[in-house]
């Protein structure tokens, strides 16, 4: 077992086991991974049965990496998860209920049917709701951290995830560079799952190692084994505490594989068999369970119990949400503006007078 086996490029090299990994942490993380997995399986079923429209985008195979960022964050931090972060979201306080509500468009969900699926958050609580345009959330998190700094609030970090494909966007670059210039306590985790949609890495970037970009941004870089929960917890734990203690932006790059299509409409047939059979293709949930059973942090019975409890919770929430009201177009406040008084709002509508 490699506790906190972090390969650090840049100024610092860390060898000792990380404080980021504790029995509690790991157990909590594992349970959240299970929760995400079971919930996402339900989402897939709801999609296939036509209850969810548009699309369903799952994080299967990426739960260990995702959750490891989430569990190291706390209230007051800022978190902008991306596509494959169901597990991290749950760790940051998102719920089975609100996930289902958002996917199903319930008017009681945080997005009230206005936005859906992974475009979900509660920005006022530090939980940013991603826009689709990849890379855009890096600088948004930076802005939140600037605000905290200006108000003299210390100790908070900001965090976001992105796929390796998203690193090709100008937005990602500008955000990373700005984070470096402003020396912000941000942790950016790159989930290199070898494909962006169907596009393999050789059509996405030409560097041997995405981690080599850390130096160019003047930020600390760390590598994690993307499907190894204990490694991820350790490495990301260090990154988060580095950021928290004022050492500036942190980039974590982790290799892994998504064990599912880009969305549920996609059979991912472009992922070659040999990759699936490689260590990258090992399911992080299986890996984590085996390891944690081995060191006695988990028992088989517990896993079975948790699985049952979670399945029940997911089913109950799903049937509840399926009965919840859809948003009513005639009740909808068809107005994009904020706190202007109603007369001003009326005034703002182009066609509202017709």
């Amino acid at each position: 077992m490699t506790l906190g086996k972090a390969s650090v490029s840049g100024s610092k090299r860390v060898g000792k086991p990380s404080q980021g990994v504790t029995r509690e942490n790991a157990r909590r993380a594992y349970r959240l991974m299970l929760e995400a997995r079971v919930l996402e399986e339900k989402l897939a079923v709801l999609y296939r049965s036509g209850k969810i429209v548009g699309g369903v985008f799952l994080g299967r195979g990426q739960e260990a990496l995702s959750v490891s960022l989430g569990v190291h964050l706390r209230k007051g931090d800022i978190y902008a998860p991306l596509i494959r972060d169901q597990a991290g979201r749950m760790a940051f306080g998102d719920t089975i209920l609100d996930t289902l509500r958002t996917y199903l468009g319930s008017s009681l969900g945080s997005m009230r049917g206005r936005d859906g699926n992974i475009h979900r958050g509660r920005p006022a609580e530090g939980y940013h709701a991603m826009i689709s345009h990849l890379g855009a959330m890096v600088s948004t998190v930076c802005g939140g951290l600037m605000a905290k700094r200006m108000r003299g609030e210390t100790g908070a970090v900001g965090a976001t995830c992105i796929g390796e494909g998203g690193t090709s966007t100008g937005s990602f670059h500008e955000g990373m560079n700005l984070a470096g210039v402003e020396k912000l306590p941000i942790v950016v985790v790159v989930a290199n799952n070898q494909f962006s949609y169907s596009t393999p890495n050789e059509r996405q970037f030409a560097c041997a190692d995405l981690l080599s970009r850390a130096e160019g941004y003047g930020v600390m870089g760390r590598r994690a084994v993307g499907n190894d929960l204990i490694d991820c917890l350790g490495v990301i734990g260090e990154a988060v505490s580095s950021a928290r203690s004022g050492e500036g932006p942190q980039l974590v790059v982790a290799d892994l594989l998504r064990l599912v299509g880009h969305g549920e409409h996609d059979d991912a047939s472009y992922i070659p068999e040999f990759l699936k059979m490689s260590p990258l293709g090992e399911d992080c949930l299986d890996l984590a369970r085996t390891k944690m059973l081995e060191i006695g942090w988990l028992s088989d019975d517990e896993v079975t119990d948790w699985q049952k409890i979670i399945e029940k919770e997911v089913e109950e929430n799903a049937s509840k949400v399926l009965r919840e009201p859809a948003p009513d177009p005639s009740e909808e406040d068809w107005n994009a503006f904020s706190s202007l008084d109603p007369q001003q709002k009326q005034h703002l509508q182009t066609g509202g007078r017709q």
Partner: protein
Amino acid sequence: MSNITYLEAIRLAQQRVLHEDPRVFIYGQDIGVFGGAFKATKNLAKEFPGRVLDAPISEDAMVGLAIGAAVEGMRPIIEMQFADFSTCGFNQIVNQAATLHYRTGTSCPLVIRLPSGGTPGGGPFHSQSMEAIYAHYPGLIVMTPATVEDAYTMLLEAVAIDDPVIFCEHKFLYYHLKADRLPETVLPFGKARIARQGRDVTVVAYSAMVHEALAAAEELTHDGYDIEVVDLRTVRPIDTDTILASVARTGRLLVVGEAWPWGGVAAEVISRVATEGFGLLDAPPQRLNAKETPVPYHPALWGTHRPTASSVANSLRQLLEL
């Protein structure tokens, strides 16, 4: 051939230009072996090796690349995965592609395909209609085909034109529309089409809204009205002559657009008719657009956000009473 979809027409047009014109290549995310998010380039990478290429997630660079290749005499087609993501290539489109010919005298023949418009569950970032944004800029031609036939012939035309063309293809029409065969003859570039003849009101529409307008017109036959529907086909240029001739016959105008109203195609059309055909109007011209919020995710909200046959019919009834 039979049962050719709007999407397949786009694929076939690309196949044809790749076949006939060695200057053509296609660049876009996931368009290679995978055939594109919507399969508009299915099998083309195999048929035309090295000419249908997966791009990195870099809309700005994709457009920049197309510009540089166009300057060298190529005829690149850029597929944006969704129209909404073209905002990330916006600068290259409006400041480099659109200005190149006026500034330097060198033309910039490229086509940017924008899978546009709303679909159920698409939400704010996979549903946008950006034709008005691009049409604002001199130097850009903006096409908005509404039929399988036009999807095919206008894409051929787009590739043939020496200027940058923004090709707004509607995702909702991809599978909904079918035709038996592809046309041999084509309306001239920039010419609008009378999609339905009528004498009581002129409805000007484009892209998916043509079909909502046609359905509304059908509905109004039950009330004894005879509605004319003009399909703009291209929104820059706008074929003002055809619109004015229609309004001259009907005396009434409704313009329908799926995009937001402020400065949209509807505003532009009404402005032209009011300016140039004021005397032809028997009643105030009207417009019907999307509601003024981001495009909502839930199908129930989305169905109200965009104009539909029934809201077009309502607008028509109101207009007929003015």
